């Protein structure tokens, strides 16, 4: 249970600056997701918070206390790694008990805490197994269990679900959310998957090239993306961008207009003319791929099934209150 404050955090390796002045406040009990394309510095930022990397400049405060010079062990964070990083030679029980043993906690206390964590994560039957004898989801749970037995102030997750298959990912997503609501702890979660970010976060931090692009609730980011990058990154399929010149009645000064595929509609009097290059029939919905002008690809989601075929031309419109306008620099108007 803790607050986290990052002020002007910079990280550079030799001459390359990975993190370029991050300011962020995470309040107590919040579930914050760092999301961004690969190489945006989100994992590095997490490692700076954990203490595994040092910040080149800037301050990190946990619970109001400056922790820049505090070692990873003493910051009171716990981390779940992408590869789980379970100790392969130890049993599940020993894996979870290792942190407490290092703190010199009495054996009986360790046993109670590990039992409690094992129960919470349904690992009771597996405690004497070695990590290699576990499935991916079970390993993931052990990694989480290892981090919760120590009752850390801050939970850090570094892309913990990326090694799991799609189905397991969905259920683990729910489990982690559930865990958060039960523990009420502050959690920071790094992912490159915007669906994970949308479904799990109280607050999403979108990062690009070491900058924070936007911070907000998932729906804020969906409804009011502050620039073209966030607009394109949040939402699936991604937002279509059409030159403002193609769109009658566009806002003055707008360079491009963003239309989400789920908001675009087929309309005989629509202002946009789309040439269909591919049709994906998903049964309940159909996705049309094509373009309105050669350089502007366009996707459109229709509910139900369709008879439109490749090569057809359709007229498209969009409700005015679902249009997003961006200036030549990509900023929202």
């Amino acid at each position: 249970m803790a607050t986290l404050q990052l002020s002007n955090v910079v990280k550079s390796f030799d001459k390359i600056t990975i993190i370029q002045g991050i300011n962020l406040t995470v309040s107590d009990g919040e579930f914050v997701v760092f999301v961004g394309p690969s190489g945006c510095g989100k994992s590095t930022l997490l490692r700076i918070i954990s203490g595994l990397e040092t910040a080149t400049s800037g301050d990190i405060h946990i619970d109001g206390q400056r922790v820049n010079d505090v070692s990873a062990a003493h910051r009171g964070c716990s981390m779940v790694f992408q590869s789980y990083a379970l100790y392969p030679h130890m049993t599940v029980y020993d894996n979870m008990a290792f942190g407490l043993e290092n703190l010199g906690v009495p054996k009986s206390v360790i046993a109670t805490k590990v039992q409690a964590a094992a129960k919470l994560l349904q690992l009771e039957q597996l405690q004497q197994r070695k990590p290699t004898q576990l499935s991916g989801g079970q390993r993931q749970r052990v990694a989480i269990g290892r981090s919760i037995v120590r009752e850390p102030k801050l939970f850090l997750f570094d892309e913990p679900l990326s090694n799991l298959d799609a189905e397991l990912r969905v259920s683990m997503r729910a489990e982690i959310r559930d865990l958060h609501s039960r523990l009420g702890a502050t959690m920071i979660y790094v992912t490159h998957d915007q669906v994970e970010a949308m479904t799990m976060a109280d607050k999403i931090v979108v990062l690009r090239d070491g900058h924070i692009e936007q911070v907000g609730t998932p729906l804020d980011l969906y409804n009011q993306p502050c620039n073209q990058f966030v607009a394109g990154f949040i939402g699936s399929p991604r937002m279509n961008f059409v030159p403002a010149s193609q769109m009658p009645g566009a806002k003055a000064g707008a360079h491009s207009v963003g239309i989400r595929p789920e908001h675009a509609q087929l309309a005989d009097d629509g202002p946009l003319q789309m040439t269909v290059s591919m049709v994906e029939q998903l049964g309940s919905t159909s996705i049309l791929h094509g373009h309105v002008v050669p350089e502007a690809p366009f996707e459109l989601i229709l509910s139900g099934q369709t008879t439109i075929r490749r090569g057809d031309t359709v007229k498209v419109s969009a409700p005015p209150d679902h249009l997003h306008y961006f200036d030549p620099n990509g900023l929202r108007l």
Partner: protein
Amino acid sequence: MANFFTRTCGRVHGRTRLHWTDWVSYAYLVAGLVVMFGPVLWLVMSSFKTESALSQFPPSFLPYSQKMVVVAGHDQPLPLYRVKDEQGQTHEWAQVRRIGIMATMVDPLQPQTELKVNINDRQPVNELKFASGNYTELFGKFSFGTYLWNSVFITVVATLITLLFNSMAAFALSKYRFTGQKTVFVLIIATLMIPPTIILVPAFLVISSVGLLNSLWGVILPAVATPTGVFLLRQYMLTIPDELLEAARMDNASEWRIYWKIILPLAAPAMAVLAIFSFMWRWNDFLWPLIVLSKSEKFTLQLALNAFQGELNTQWNYLLAMTVITLIPITVVFAFLQKYITTGIASAGVK
């Protein structure tokens, strides 16, 4: 095993008979077996021969020795011979004494009558007999126990210290980033290029000036840090993911605990390989102990073996028995740890 032996080229191609390449392979393997294993087997057999059987010509593979019989009227057992008399009949007679080319013999069944026989007319009667006395007498005859203890002490202690120091160095070189890391590593590896004979005299001067001459520690300490060991372990430790160390750091583990609880258990295969090597090096080491240890109560087995030979007459039967005993520890270590050698070397070599 049977499956292994019958997995031949001929079988694979659907024929029941052996292909000529199979014959060549088997011949090659059998030749290899004889060349590699023959001398060892001969050594073991010879170690069970009596001194006289050893000097016999032509030599025999199995430990034969002359049959002795107890004859009434004689205190000692007498050697038995097969004698051909003038009628061309053969008898088994025991020899009482021999003067020149004439031997005085007696028929064990009629001990009263002594017979004179030309020594060219008799052949010794041999029987298969393992002279276990070679082994049992060793312990009383020489301070064999002391030598064995010295050897075991040096080998075990040196191996333990070698493992500890080399793995610590390897841990630092593989998992920490510090200035001069590469330089240190290259320096360590570079010492591989210096032949041990070159540093023999300087090492001796150091050991003598710190007063470790004639001390087992004088044998143990100089070669505790081996570049080969550091290299072997470092290469293996590079394959241990850094994330494990980071996880341990997040788990409040001190660097020593990370080394002791995470790195060491995970580097076990490479450690086993180094343990075997170190065991072999130390057990078979001859030159350095010879220089450092001059008092016979500090001798290792290898030095004691050498001392046997140095005397005016070599007691081959004891020497051979002792050689066999010296081979046993290495053989045992190999038998139990050999699977680690292959896996360890294979995985240490990959990365």
